[in-house]
């Protein structure tokens, strides 16, 4: 996963600054300084967890795919049950026909 942290951090600064404007220039300068100091730490955490989330999502999708495979296996077993039942029904009906004809002799 490509994480453009510079772009995200610029957005953060903008939101942060807009909220601190009301506190005056001093508050704004102090706030921007504090946030700038946290930039490296925030970038590091964001990149590590973005990678973990991406891997986790990939793993989750893979597991769901395997669940689909399992469901397919179970439906295939269901197909065997249906075919077997249909075969039995047809052949027993044929047995009945042959039996009925034999009685005519």
């Amino acid at each position, binding site marked *: 996963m490509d994480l453009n942290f510079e772009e995200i951090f610029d957005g953060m600064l903008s939101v942060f600054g807009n909220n601190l404007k009301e506190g005056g220039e001093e508050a704004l300068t102090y706030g921007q300084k504090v946030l700038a100091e946290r930039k490296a730490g925030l970038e590091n955490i964001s990149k590590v967890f973005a990678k973990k989330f991406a891997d986790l999502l990939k793993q989750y999708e893979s597991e769901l795919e395997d669940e689909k495979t*399992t469901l397919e296996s179970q439906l295939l077993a269901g197909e065997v049950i249906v075919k077997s039942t249909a075969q039995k029904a047809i052949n027993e009906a044929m047995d009945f026909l042959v039996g009925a004809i034999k009685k005519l002799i």
Partner: protein
Amino acid sequence: MKSIHLYFRQSVITSVILLSAIFYYGCSVNLIATYDQTAVNDIIQAYQLVDSFYQKLSNTPEDQRDYKTFSGDYEKIESSLRVLVLRNSARTLNKESTEIAKNILGLWQKYKNNHKESNNYDSDLIEIHRNRFFENFEAMTVAENSKPRTKEQ
């Protein structure tokens, strides 16, 4: 005149019986392979290998679950699963069981490659995969047990 009529009637009846017999024995409906006890034994045998593997994996501490330790088991079990696919594909009217066997083999190869790439096996995934194999093998057993005992059934 009466004897001709009687002869005609008997001929019709004989023809109907013969046709029915030919139709029945020559064209009895076969939609699915017949049940095979050997196939059930093969399924159980393959499942035992897979389940024992996951038991061993589960009992191994996470930091010792490197791929190399288990590579021999992977190859041996993969070979058994390939044989399971081949034996099923060799039987006529056995498409569904063959597909299930292929699904099992596919899952096995996928998990083997994942283990090889990451050189580890997550404990939560061990349980999930172990249960998944059980469900797939169970589906294969259900399919085999549902098959008719004889061709005519």
